[in-house]
């Protein structure tokens, strides 16, 4: 009577299709980066010449450096700003300006980039007129813009961790006479440090990836990697960009794999400790 065979659940099928949808286009980029033909759509044999061409392209190389520099400093500042904002939102109770702060912290998450970019540019222009600073726009103004929108993401990640965290540990430290600042640095920060790392990495990738906001607030001097890539792909597909895409995908996959590996190992360790406690 087994008319009903055990077939995979509809949602499982959709998950597989969804993952294929996410990964096939990236796989195509990787495969065609090894194509010897300039035409991206015709396979003409294996070659690594586009990687060589990529590493000879001074414009791309210097843009990579500019982007990494901006992303590093923007992510670091965003972690400071976002963590303080998250701490204030979750631990400070009620205060004047709380609604304003919480609206402004999360608003950049969904703000269309063209609006953020335009509004910041107008600010920098106006400030330059009134105060003489910033005299010319470039890496500095991109850093401010990226810090502002990245701190929103950091705040959300850190606030989620702070909410999970039992505040009784912090209260215990304060009851024992530890001043708030000391409690924050020696009790709270170490516990939430995984969230800080996650927030920093997220902010770093967001800053590296941004084209629209950087285009608005940048000056003639600073070209970030997305700006260079954009002006190239606008003209059509180019095998050099495929090679660059492959390297980016490889780096991110490797970093993700390492993160997964360590998280799994920690989880396994915790299970062992829990079992030992149960046994003992």
């Amino acid at each position, binding site marked *: 009577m087994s008319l009903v065979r055990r077939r995979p659940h509809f949602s499982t099928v959709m998950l597989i299709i969804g993952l294929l949808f996410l990964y096939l286009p*990236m796989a195509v980029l990787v495969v065609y980066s090894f194509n010897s033909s300039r035409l991206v759509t015709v396979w003409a044999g294996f070659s690594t010449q586009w990687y060589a061409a990529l590493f000879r392209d001074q414009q791309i190389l210097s843009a990579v450096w500019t982007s990494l520099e901006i992303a590093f400093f923007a992510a670091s500042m965003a972690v400071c700003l976002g963590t303080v904002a998250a701490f204030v939102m979750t631990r400070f109770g009620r205060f004047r300006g709380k609604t304003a702060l919480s609206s402004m912290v999360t608003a950049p998450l969904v703000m269309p980039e063209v609006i953020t970019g335009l509004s910041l540019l107008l600010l920098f222009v106006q400030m330059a007129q009134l105060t003489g600073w910033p005299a010319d726009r470039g890496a500095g103004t991109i850093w401010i813009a990226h810090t502002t929108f990245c701190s929103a993401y950091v705040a959300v990640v850190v606030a989620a961790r702070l909410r999970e965290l039992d505040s009784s540990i912090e209260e215990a430290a304060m009851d024992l006479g530890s001043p*708030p600042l000391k409690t924050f640095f020696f009790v709270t920060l170490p516990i939430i440090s995984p969230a800080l790392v996650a927030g920093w990495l997220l902010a770093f990738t967001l800053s590296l990836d941004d084209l629209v906001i950087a285009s608005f607030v940048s000056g003639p001097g600073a070209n970030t990697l997305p700006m260079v890539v954009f002006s190239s792909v606008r003209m059509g597909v180019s095998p050099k960009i495929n090679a660059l895409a492959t390297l*980016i*995908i490889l780096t991110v996959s490797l970093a993700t794999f390492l993160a997964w590996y360590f998280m799994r190992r920690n989880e396994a360790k915790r299970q062992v400790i829990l079992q030992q406690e149960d046994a003992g």
Partner: protein
Amino acid sequence: MMLSHLTATLRRWQLGRRAVIAFPLIWLLLFFLLPFALVLKISLSQGAVAIPPYGPLVEYADQTLNIFLNLGNYLFLLSDSLYVAAYWGSVKTAFMSTVVCLLIGYPMAYAMARAPARWQLLLLLLVMLPSWTSFLIRVYAWMGILSNSGLINNLLMGLGLIETPLRMMNTQFAVVIGIVYAYLPFMVLPLYAHLTRLDNSLLEAASDLGSRKLNTFIKVTLPLSMGGIIAGSMLVFIPAVGEFVIPELLGGPNTLMIGKVLWEEFFLNRDWPIASALAMVMLLLLLIPIVWFHRYQSRELEE
């Protein structure tokens, strides 16, 4: 003596507390709120051949203070069918993309939440990984797939299924595919977060009381994951309305979207007042979705 020491300490803490609040508050007032006030200001000014290219709002000349408030930019937006069509095109495209994202993303998140515990982290990382690579390059990937001499057309023509290439690039279809592809992870993430938190005993209770699976899904699972549906949909819809890169790379002359029009007004026509007015109207359009998202998000943030 003791008491005064205590009050001094308390006062110092109070001061410290204020300083801690002031740091993010001042940064955001200066670099988030003030810029919007400037967009409003410049949207009310007149374009001028100057650097920066707009006229002043307040001028003091001949001992009289002149204030120029110019609604002309807004009237111009309303009278020119190009802008109205661009707004409509943006909302339509963003809405379609959000629905498709939800239809693909919900079952994905559902399957992830039901998967064995040791698989869940891996699946979550697999869904999020593409969004950590490069947005631009992921959109670019579709140029090679959809174009007339692209992968799909080559494949179909090679198999002899079609004789002339299907026109997929520079169409609405391509823009929707691009948005769905780029924003899908942002739909799945909040849905998954809500579905894993779902209490299994509720589903068991429903089934014990004789509810059928579909019925349980509609009456229990769906309402309980509504927060995730709203958050995910807003995370896709709002940025998609203002999207510039996707219509620029995958769209064509028939896929007018407001983000692209704003970009062109600003960078090509150097008409800052019109670009500012376009941004203000877009913000007005998105006000309800943004407030909706914010309500949900601040509840999450503050407990």
